[in-house]
């Protein structure tokens, strides 16, 4: 069976700027992977490239074996990609309910199942998108992607701004998803604890390239290696949001 997602020597960026370079990557049909890396190394860009938001400078992207490199954004979505963007991107002039249903497609995820995961949202159905708390927006963004019943789910820092208890619940739900037959997941996560616990395979990026691709367990155990790769430590402080445009 074909891989859910495959990057074949992909370079992409914004306008003339190339942000990720020569990325090779494959995610199996029911596999989940997690991507780590410092601020500004191109994690979001990688997901956005799969979704079609960036300019492709080279290489090919395949979804379930089909080349989607030239496909419009909405066709990729219809082909089965779901997206939880980093900045939530809730539609402010739609109600919670409308936000959930604008992109809904039939499948196992429906309103009822989503509210099981986020019971809090059910109580806010009538709120407009811009009348939600930060965390509620995050929940809604995840729920909205699930309502499209994707076969490949791209999640960009979905735990940001969520209460610790909810993060745990989400983690459990994603575990379910992972074991659930039909969905592959790519998760970008800053928090190594969540990230490495979530998937068996982890990717670390730096300066637009993949510098580690292997079992999560390895990194979990080797703290020094992890630190070297993603720089958990004070001496790295001046790297914040380093501007990496070339």
């Amino acid at each position, binding site marked *: 069976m074909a891989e859910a997602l495959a990057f074949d020597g992909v370079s992409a960026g914004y306008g003339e700027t190339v942000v990720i370079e020569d990325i090779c990557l494959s995610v199996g049909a029911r596999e989940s992977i997690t991507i780590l890396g*410092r*601020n*500004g190394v191109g994690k979001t860009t990688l997901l956005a490239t799969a979704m079609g938001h960036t300019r492709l400078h080279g290489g090919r992207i395949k979804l379930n074996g089909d080349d989607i490199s030239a496909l419009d954004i909405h066709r990729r979505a219809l082909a089965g990609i779901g997206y939880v963007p*980093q900045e939530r991107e809730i539609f402010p002039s739609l109600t919670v309910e409308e936000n959930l249903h604008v992109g809904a497609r039939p499948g196992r995820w429906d309103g009822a199942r989503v509210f099981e995961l986020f019971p*809090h949202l059910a109580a*806010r159905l009538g709120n407009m998108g811009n*009348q*939600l*708390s*930060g*965390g*509620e927006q*995050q*929940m809604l963004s995840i729920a909205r992607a699930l309502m499209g019943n994707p076969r490949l789910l791209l999640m960009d*820092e979905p735990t*940001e*701004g*969520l*209460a*610790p*208890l*909810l*993060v*745990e619940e989400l983690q459990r739900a994603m575990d379910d998803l992972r074991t659930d037959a039909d969905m592959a997941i790519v998760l970008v996560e*800053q*928090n190594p*604890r969540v990230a490495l616990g979530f998937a068996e395979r982890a990717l670390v990026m730096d300066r637009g390239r993949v510098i580690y691709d292997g079992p999560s367990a390895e990194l979990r155990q080797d703290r020094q290696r992890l630190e070297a790769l*993603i*720089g*958990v*430590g*004070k001496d*790295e*402080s*001046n*790297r*914040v*949001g*380093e*501007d990496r445009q070339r």
Partner: protein
Amino acid sequence: MTGPVLEAKGVCKNFGALEVSRNIDFRLAAGERHALIGPNGAGKTTFVNLMTGALTPSRGQVILHGEDITALAQAQRVKRGIVRTFQITALFRGLTVLENLYVAVAERTGAATGLWRPAGYRRDVIDQSLRLLEIFQLQDDAHKPIRELPYGRQRLVEIALALALEPSVLLLDEPAAGVPSAESHIILDVIDGLPADIAVLIIEHDMDVVFRFAERITVLVSGAILVQGSPDEIANNAEVRAVYLGEAAHG
């Protein structure tokens, strides 16, 4: 005087039928480091909005330095020293970092009402803006418009703008949100280094930050205060763990 600098008395807020703040009694002492935590949608941001005047309470009073400020507009409260940052970055995106700071400093110093003399003549305002840049190590970005700045740096400007107003009470709404834990410590260092006489209230979901920073913690659930206490008390409170912390308290 050792009384609270900021006090909420029986503050309530409804959005239609929804009670977002229920009878909140809260005190913040001078120089205190206080954290406000609670589940998503508990009403934490709303509480900040009520204190700063972005929202008016349906009932109750807000008292700053012993003076009832419930009826005061947001701008007047800022003049009296109560300043906030935003959970979702709210900056002047088309202006450069330096100009952003100029706007804030000009408001505090009263320069902003000047209609006639050019802005450039207020060297004092520019110099103070430069000093803030230095504190936040933003000098190299001074000339860049905000929208070209990486998110982490934007968060720094967010806090710099608040400090430019020289607050006596600072309300920080998830200051490190969107900044990876590996790098959020710049922000935390800045917060740690705040003048001791500023009272600080921080809202945060990252328990590492909360427990490192706070002297006292208030837990808000469904709009009402569940408990208040020292970090240890909170970490070991079963109810708090059940509704909010989960296993995080161990981490």
